[in-house]
């Protein structure tokens, strides 16, 4: 095995140009796929942060006493998909309404009595923030005897959920397509490299080398190339990311969203894929080229 490893290193040096091309191609492919993944991860973050704004207002019946409130709160809190429940007294609600109608609050100033009900604002777990789940939850809350009505931004949520779903679907589809394209490109490049070393392979077979002896250095080379290509690709992505991030810092000093790099787990995954693809390209090509030959 050590011999094979040495032979692989030797080989990489002997075929400098071919190896450079392979590594560059792998790097670029990794860059493409990981850039896309990075984009979708961040876009997903932003969208998810919007989801946090989704809430259900549970308006209570007017005859509910203050003592019953903790129990109701607990009950709602216990429902599936609920993240947080906040009590909004009718005074608080009126304050908010006034704020909303700022400039025309004269309208409300005429009122002697506050006609608004007490309410609970129910915030949702982001995982449950799609139209169906929200609808279910709202129905469930409305069914509680102490709740008069449960409301949420039905139209807006429907629209947003559609966009979000489409976005996610497209994201998966694109990452999938790009990944496959990258695998093909890398495999193709390695095939070309091995094609141009066909004679060498044939000569090795003719002097009595076993398939294993021929293949092993190629495999090790493939793994090394995959690893180097992966590192270069991810490094390039990181540089590009830092450049964009600096720019974004200026654009969004508001700090509402925080763009972030790929997580260590994903990075490891990409590295593993890159290494695997380096090996796979060799595997397929060798299989093909060795099959062409007799004996």
């Amino acid at each position, binding site marked *: 095995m050590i011999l094979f490893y040495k032979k692989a290193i030797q080989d990489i040096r*002997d075929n400098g140009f071919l190896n450079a091309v392979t590594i560059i191609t792998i790097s670029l492919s990794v860059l493409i796929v990981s850039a896309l993944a990075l984009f979708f991860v961040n876009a997903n973050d932003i969208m998810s942060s919007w989801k946090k704004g989704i809430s259900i207002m549970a308006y209570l019946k007017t005859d509910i006493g203050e003592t019953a409130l903790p129990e109701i709160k607990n009950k709602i809190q216990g429902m599936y998909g609920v993240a947080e429940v906040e009590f909004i007294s009718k005074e608080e609600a009126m304050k908010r309404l006034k704020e909303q109608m700022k400039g025309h609050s004269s309208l409300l100033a005429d009122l002697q009595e506050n006609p608004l009900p007490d309410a609970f604002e129910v915030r949702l777990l982001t995982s449950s923030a799609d139209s169906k789940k929200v609808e279910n939850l709202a129905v469930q809350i409305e069914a509680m005897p102490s709740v008069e009505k449960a409301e949420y931004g039905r139209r807006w949520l429907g629209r947003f959920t559609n966009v979000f779903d489409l976005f996610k679907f497209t994201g998966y589809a694109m990452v999938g397509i790009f990944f496959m394209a990258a695998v093909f490109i890398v495999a193709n490049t390695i095939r070309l490299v091995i094609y141009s070393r066909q004679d060498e392979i044939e000569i090795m077979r003719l*002097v*009595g080398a076993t398939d294993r002896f021929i293949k092993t250095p190629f495999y090790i080379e493939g793994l090394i190339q995959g690893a180097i290509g992966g590192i270069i690709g991810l490094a390039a992505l990181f540089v590009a990311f830092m450049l964009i991030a600096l720019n974004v810092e200026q654009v969004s000093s508001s700090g509402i969203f925080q763009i972030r790099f790929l997580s260590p787990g994903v990075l490891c995954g990409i590295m593993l894929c890159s290494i695997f693809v380096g090996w796979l390209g060799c595997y397929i090509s060798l299989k093909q080229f060795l099959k062409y030959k*007799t*004996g």
Partner: protein
Amino acid sequence: MIDGNDKNSIIRMFHVHKQYGAKKALIDINFDVSKNEFLFITGPSGAGKSTLLKLLYFGEPVSEGQILIDGMNLSRISRNRTPFLRRKFGIIFQDYKLIPTKTVFDNVALVLEAMGKKRQLIQKKVNSVLRMVGMEERSKSFPQSLSGGEQQRVAVARAVVGVPRIILADEPTGSLDSESANVIVDLLKGFHTRGGTVIVATHDKELLRKTGSRIIHLKEGRQIK
């Protein structure tokens, strides 16, 4: 159908035909080669000499007929076993077939590495055969930077380094002046003396004359007596 029990024959060919598309390269070839024989195959350009050698080392399958090498029937050999068949042979190819990205040393060492030999042994043996063919000073050169004759000598070195049972030499002195050619002929003879089997395909009359052993004549793919 045939069994290789003839203890004296290392190679047996029975009604061998080889066809490339419509082109008949070999027609009904029959001969045996004894252990420790020095055999010439001769004939004009395109007669089928190289094709005959190619069939022996299983570079191509036969179209018809049977070949036994050291008791193994080539038509029944599995893909996994071919490398071991090929290690019985040391082959000097007509076009040398050196690997252009490897040095002279590495080209020759390849045979021993494929056999799984130890590094020190490889070092020693390769240097020794390169000295025999007069190429030890060029061991770090690449094949393209060698003259035709130098490449041929490296090809010879590679063929003998693994101490095969049979040497197949296709025009082994074609690019060599008579002096260098003598070195190669002596090398082949020495190998033969030490018990090896040698098959040389050539049209070098001088070579035939110098050695004077059994000759198989081919013409347009047929064996002529």
